[in-house]
């Protein structure tokens, strides 16, 4: 199938809004493009609620990377069909069961902005245009060269000049100011307006990469003063490989970026075996003004903003692959983006929200934020929960009894989570039974191993409060590490 025209992309979104009105909503962005085209985003969701998480997928920032807007529109179609017709999404060797897609749509807001830069795409597809046009179509004052590189126009170290150019004729011309362009302001508007967005992927081409922050320099986790807001380091950033400056990133987020990225990589590989590489974006060339770094950095600049885990996906091995290859890449993009949705789902809210009341949800959240995150063992469990959420969502989606058992356990556990009372023996036995049942549904050795460990850990809670139990677990694990290594006997 050839590439969609700009008009066809708009038409496809209008068709989906007409065909699936209960789950598909068109959003007219506040600013038209430089040449006056109306730009639409969409929201795929069923239901409402203050606690729903959102994800944002954007494409077509660079005009010549033609396959990516088509991939985002295709994802929208497949999600709508899976939800409505109860059909699985089959992507080569990777299948997302209908129940998983239904869980996503029922519990998340999925925002798509398939074509950020319609003027650029129209010019690239025009017989009188340029197939390899990258930028938007801004008229640059005092220059015969048109266009601004939109992915160097976001407000992240924009004026630093790192990996950008002040020359309007350059392919990486950053523009006169951050957010000088209506197309980038529209992306910012999405993040500002839909404050429940917790994850963002900007889909580009090419090189088979999954990139996460930072892009301006190497990353480090030990010196918070080396950060993009600190003017003491102005002029010292943008030299990867040196020891003068490296951008600070909280270690837990480094791990989460890697874990989520690895999940995307595995989902892509399952389609037809292509191995994307997960890495920090700086690579050989540092950059500034990118959507990914801006989206993640917002919560650091303004603590009122939510943290957005943001990536750049570099799809395929050329800008405009032939039909058969484009179809495979579209499958890979769909797999990565669905995997991202599942990775960012809150297991409790998505699987058991109906069965757990608001008070109990608050108790669960408080336990996560006030107890688990402050304990090394608790943090380890949260990381493991992140890693296994996609498999758990699939398991719960396919088994109503398992879902019911999970909700029952959460209801029983909620009162204990917010108290310093001793964990009742009955609750421990309940949890052990559930973990054993879940273990029988586990598909991967990794989840089975985690559940075995959890079952063993539950015994350490006997006769203790949860806080004391976590402390005891910590001591036990240290003691195990301190044990001398026993040499095997002959």
């Amino acid at each position, binding site marked *: *199938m*050839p*590439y*969609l*025209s700009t*008009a*066809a992309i708009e*038409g*496809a979104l209008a*068709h989906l809004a007409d*065909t699936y009105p209960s789950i598909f909503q068109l959003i007219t962005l506040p600013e038209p493009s430089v040449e006056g085209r109306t730009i639409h985003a969409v929201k795929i969701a069923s239901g409402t609620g203050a606690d729903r998480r959102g994800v944002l997928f954007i494409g077509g920032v660079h005009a*010549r990377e*033609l396959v990516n807007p088509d991939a985002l529109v*295709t994802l929208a*179609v497949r999600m709508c*069909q899976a939800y409505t017709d109860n059909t699985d999404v089959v992507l080569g060797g990777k299948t997302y069961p209908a129940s998983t897609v239904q869980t996503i749509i029922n519990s998340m807001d999925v925002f798509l902005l398939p074509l950020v830069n319609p003027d650029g795409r129209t010019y*690239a*597809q025009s*017989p009188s*245009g*340029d*197939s*390899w046009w*990258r930028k938007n179509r801004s008229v640059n004052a005092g220059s015969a060269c048109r266009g601004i590189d939109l992915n160097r126009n976001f407000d992240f170290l924009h004026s630093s000049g790192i*990996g950008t*150019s002040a*020359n309007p*004729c*350059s*392919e*990486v011309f950053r523009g006169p100011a951050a957010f000088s362009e209506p197309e980038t302001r529209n992306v910012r508007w999405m993040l500002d307006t839909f404050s429940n967005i917790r994850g963002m992927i900007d889909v*580009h081409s*090419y*090189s088979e*990469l999954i*990139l996460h922050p930072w892009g301006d320099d190497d990353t480090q986790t030990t010196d918070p003063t080396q950060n993009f807001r600190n003017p003491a380091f102005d002029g010292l950033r943008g030299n990867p*490989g040196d020891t003068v400056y490296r951008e600070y990133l909280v270690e837990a987020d480094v791990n989460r970026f890697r874990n989520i990225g690895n999940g995307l990589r595995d989902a892509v590989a399952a389609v037809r075996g292509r191995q994307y590489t997960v890495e920090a974006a700086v*690579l*050989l*060339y540092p*950059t500034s003004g990118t959507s990914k770094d801006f989206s993640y950095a917002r919560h650091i600049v303004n603590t009122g903003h939510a943290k957005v885990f943001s990536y750049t996906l*570099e799809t395929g091995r*050329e*800008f*405009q*692959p*032939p039909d058969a290859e484009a179809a495979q890449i579209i499958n890979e993009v769909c797999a990565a983006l669905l995997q991202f949705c599942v990775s960012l789902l809150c297991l409790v809210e998505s699987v058991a929200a109906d069965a757990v009341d608001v008070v109990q949800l608050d108790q669960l959240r408080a336990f996560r934020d006030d107890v688990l995150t402050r304990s090394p063992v608790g943090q380890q469990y949260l990381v493991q929960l992140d890693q296994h959420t996609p498999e758990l969502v699939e398991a719960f989606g396919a088994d109503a009894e398992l879902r019911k058992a999970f909700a029952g356990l959460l209801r029983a556990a909620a009162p204990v989570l917010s108290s310093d009372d001793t964990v009742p023996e009955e609750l421990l036995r309940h949890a052990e039974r559930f973990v054993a049942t879940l273990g029988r549904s586990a598909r991967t050795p990794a989840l089975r191993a985690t559940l075995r460990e959890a079952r063993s850990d539950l015994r350490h809670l006997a006769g203790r409060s949860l806080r004391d139990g976590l402390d005891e677990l910590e001591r036990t694990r240290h003691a195990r590490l301190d044990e001398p290594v026993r040499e095997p006997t002959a």
Partner: protein
Amino acid sequence: MDSRYFVTIHAVDARALRELTDFDVDIFQATARAGDSVPRIEGLITLADVGRLVAAGYRVTVEATEQARARADQVASLDEWLPAMGEA
């Protein structure tokens, strides 16, 4: 407009590869590779650019003409696309 060519640009080291940005040519930053062999990157440049880079010590391999990889003129209408997606 002068004809452009898809090229692979080889540099003597990673630093030289980074310094390619000084030439203001259309290089595809995500394709840069330095770890495993000779540092290299792909790009889309004119023959005049090839000359400038070679004169500066880079090795440039021409991979394809721009027309050979261009598919932007192959455009699908909504009427063609919807049935292919199972949407009547």
